[in-house]
């Protein structure tokens, strides 16, 4: 499994190639498949160890589906997901495994290395379980409950800023931010290498959001975690991410190091998206690129570049040919026929 042919970087932890997840659309009496929603279509990205990759895009762009398909919570339609697993290796040294080729038992073992944090701080905790039960559930599943479990749970609680006496309480007794902390403690229980955070702060108030983001950043350093941070809020993603991938209708439009992407975007969608974000500066010039119309329907996508109906730089070629994600500059990828040729404005850093 040590095929490192395509991996340039020793530090890469997860590599996703050509990931596809199509949901069938059924119709008629016999529930015949009449088409597919291409929720995730040919997505490529990688995550380095101890790095945060932001996955940003508007609703329906497939960012959440991509996160789940990586873990095979949604079985991918096609593609390859390679992961450097610690739990599955016998030698103790991390070993490359292809997640899609694993059987159920092996996959379960890999889940010790990858965990998830969810968007809904209420819905992601079972209301009938105490905090202790919630946090020990991953340990139970992996037969890791021992005499020190309670101590371990208390340490986790304290690490995420909750108190030991919270251990016997039920989720409904906590505020939204505290519940999210419980979810974070649970995701740390098995000491993972990678956490997929699915919109972890979008349901929280501004002040609580800041607390949670700071906590995630601290934990990343303490435990040398890598995050895939799925979110729709560009400013939050910019704040937390080392690298950012922008998705549009199931595909990656652009991927680069965070500051580079925000200051020198290469894809017109990234440019327009950033200029759309309302800036907390009343003197800022209210001048921006308005994207006309709505996000393309993934069940009925336009031909050629998916963004062409809303793009201000559209050319004939865009309406016919689907652009591939190309490396335009070192470590800066964009899926636009004219990437690098257009003069796009980023935000000042």
């Amino acid at each position, binding site marked *: 499994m040590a095929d490192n042919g395509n991996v340039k970087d020793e530090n890469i932890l997860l590599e996703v190639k050509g990931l596809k997840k199509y949901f069938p659309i059924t119709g008629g009496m016999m529930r015949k498949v009449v088409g597919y929603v291409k929720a995730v279509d040919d997505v490529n990205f990688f995550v380095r160890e101890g790095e945060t990759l932001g996955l940003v895009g508007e609703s329906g762009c497939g960012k959440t589906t991509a996160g789940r398909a990586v873990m095979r919570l949604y079985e991918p339609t096609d593609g390859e997901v390679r992961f450097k697993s610690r739990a599955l290796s016998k030698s103790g040294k991390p070993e490359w495994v292809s997640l899609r080729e694993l059987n159920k038992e092996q996959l379960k073992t890999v889940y010790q290395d990858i965990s998830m944090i969810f968007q*809904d701080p209420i*819905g992601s905790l079972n209301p009938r379980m*105490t905090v202790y039960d919630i946090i020990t*559930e991953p340990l139970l599943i*992996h037969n890791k409950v021992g005499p020190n479990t309670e101590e371990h749970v208390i340490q986790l609680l304290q690490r995420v800023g909750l108190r030991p006496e919270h251990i016997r309480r039920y989720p409904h007794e906590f505020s939204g931010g505290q519940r999210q902390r419980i979810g974070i403690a649970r995701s740390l229980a098995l000491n993972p290498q990678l956490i997929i955070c699915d919109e972890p702060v979008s349901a929280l108030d501004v002040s609580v959001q800041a607390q949670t983001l700071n906590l995630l950043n601290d934990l990343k350093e303490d435990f040398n975690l890598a995050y895939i941070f799925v979110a729709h809020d560009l400013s939050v993603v910019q704040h937390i991410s080392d690298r950012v991938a922008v998705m549009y209708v199931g595909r990656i439009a652009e991927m680069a190091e965070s500051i580079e992407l925000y200051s020198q975007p290469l894809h017109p969608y990234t440019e327009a998206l950033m200029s759309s974000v309302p800036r907390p500066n009343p003197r800022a010039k209210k001048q921006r690129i308005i994207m006309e119309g709505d996000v393309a329907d993934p069940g009925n996508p336009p031909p050629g570049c998916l963004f062409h109906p809303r793009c201000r730089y559209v050319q004939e070629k865009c309406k016919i040919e689907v652009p591939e994600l190309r490396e335009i500059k070192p470590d800066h990828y964009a899926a636009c026929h004219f990437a690098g040729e257009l003069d796009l404005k980023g935000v000042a850093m």
Partner: protein
Amino acid sequence: MSDAAVIPVQETKDDAVKISQSYWSLVWWKFKRNRLAVVAAFILAAYYITCLIFPEFFAPYSKGLESDYIEARPTYPQFVDADGNFSLRPFVYGLDEEIDVATRSRQFVVNESVKYPLYFFVEGEPYKLFGFIPAKTHFFGTDPADPDAKVFLLGTDRLGRDQFSRILFGGRISLFIGLFSVAVFLFVGVTLGAASGYYGGATDIVVMRITELLSAFPQEPLFLALGAAVPVSWPSTRVFFMVTILLALIQWGGLARQVRGLVLSGREEQYVLAARSFGASDRRIIFNHLIPATMSHVIVIATLKIPGMILLETALSFLGLGLVPPTVSWGTLLQNANTVRSISAAPWYLFVTPFILFAILAYNLLGDGLRDAMDPYSK
């Protein structure tokens, strides 16, 4: 992030040490405030103690003890005798047999000259408590030294057996059938409903088609057919279990559909996804997450289903399709009252109905109380 909520969710005060309230303690707190339901719970507890657990103790006689008093009228306990003398110890009058010359029928009249005092905790017929502890004490009865002394609180039947004792023993069977068939009903309904909802696909289609078939089937002819199919030679216990399982198997469809619906919505909950993301098995997700989420619903359905099962057993036995004598149940006891003649001659055969009535009523009130309590966050 709208703040439109009129009643904000109460948050824990950070510094106060507060006793943690689980969902069930909230349910209990709310249930206690519904007086009618609490009374119903006490009534049911009384029923189950007297009829299901200790009928041998509470009944003065065994269910099969025949006496010479055939279809004798009830003898009610008295405190004041015909002469106006008051005694603290209740007593019953003796009964004399008379032949009505006109109708040529035998009947019993009260003989006010004979008084049999009633005693509590008297020695009487030996029995085995729980089937193995030998005992003789009965809750009440007449003087064991006097062989003529008898007490028939609710009269006797054609074989001279005490109605009151038989109603208690009949309650044992009827109430047990309620519990047991609901247990089977729950097991089948919840398992199939949960499997149907969780796995979907072929399992779902097969289970749902079966429930549709069952609900479309006319129930009465089905019982007739099945009742006829039960061999006469079967021992009464086997018939009893047959009837119980039958009751459950015919009715699980509705429950299965509801559980399926709850599981279908529960499967989309993020905490289920979270459990899966930690590698939880299907078994674990179904038993630790999905089924507990349906529990409040299921308990209410079960509580409201028990009286239905009891009534169904009663009705079937009354029609002769369920249990048959010598098995004593409320249904078979009602069979005594199946002709106008027997009711006019011995109206005390109907005394079994108030027992059934109160049990059913109590169950319905309890079920309603539970349903309200299961939603403790509502007003």
